[in-house]
């Protein structure tokens, strides 16, 4: 086995250790999500906590399993733009309600 092959193997081994750590973190965070929901917090607090934990989990999956953390700038730019449009899309119905145009307005 030459030096390049050894380096490559060591690199993959390091990746595998990261995958296992992320896997364990995702498992723990899933239990945390379910645990927090049992406290029956008021809806705004419960939504914030649940989405916060889900965002952390989603970021771990995207960054490490999907390798977004080491991806080319073009891919990161495409996904960043997508996230912006996604946030606008989900913010629209919230704004519709909060500015008094919704049913509860």
């Amino acid at each position: 086995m030459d030096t390049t092959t050894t380096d490559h193997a060591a690199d993959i081994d390091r990746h595998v250790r990261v995958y296992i750590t992320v896997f364990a973190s995702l498992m723990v965070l899933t239990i945390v999500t379910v645990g927090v929901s049992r406290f029956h917090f008021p809806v705004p607090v419960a939504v914030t906590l649940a989405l916060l934990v889900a965002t952390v989990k989603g970021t771990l999956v995207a960054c490490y399993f999907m390798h977004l953390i080491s991806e080319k700038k073009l891919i990161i730019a495409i996904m960043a733009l997508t996230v912006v449009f996604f946030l606008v899309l989900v913010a629209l119905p919230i704004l519709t309600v909060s500015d008094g145009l919704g049913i509860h307005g």
Partner: protein
Amino acid sequence: MDIPYAVEARRDTGLTNGKIGIWLFLASEVMLFGALFASYILIRTGSPSWPRGDTILSVPMATFNTLVLISSSVTMVMAWASLMRHRFETFRMYMGATILLGLVFLVVKYFEYSEHIHAGEVPSHSNFLAIYYTLTGLHMLHVAGGMAVNAYFWGPGAKLWKTNPEWFTNRVEHSGLFWHFVDLVWIFLFPTLYLL
């Protein structure tokens, strides 16, 4: 004729065509699920009352399914890592496990759906159930689609490994990106529908 830029990166993007293609597809998928999440918010905020998910749906079943899907994501990435280390048999083991875990997810979902349907809790029963079936149904279709692609790479598609291992590894990576996306969507669906 060979497909261009399947293995070597294009000079302008620094990426293979397959890689940029799958990410653009995932961007469109984010918007598809985004539209449904926006619909969910609109229906929920416009409704005079909304049930907590855990009063209607089975949290233990969904928690189990969440753990299954997360496990399948790690076996998927391990399948790709095995190819990077030129261990084809290990790849098949991990890819087989990924497909089986996907199947477990669908079987659990089948029991969950059956329970509701037998109790008369069909989409027309309430807004909550309508959006629940729409979101989880679309997600299930994605799981089934991902399983079909993974099964192809586990079975007949694996012939490519003998003739062009780098291209095969890239294809498995792209399939993995889709599979992780399916996991990512569920990570948000689970608390949104079952716990809030």
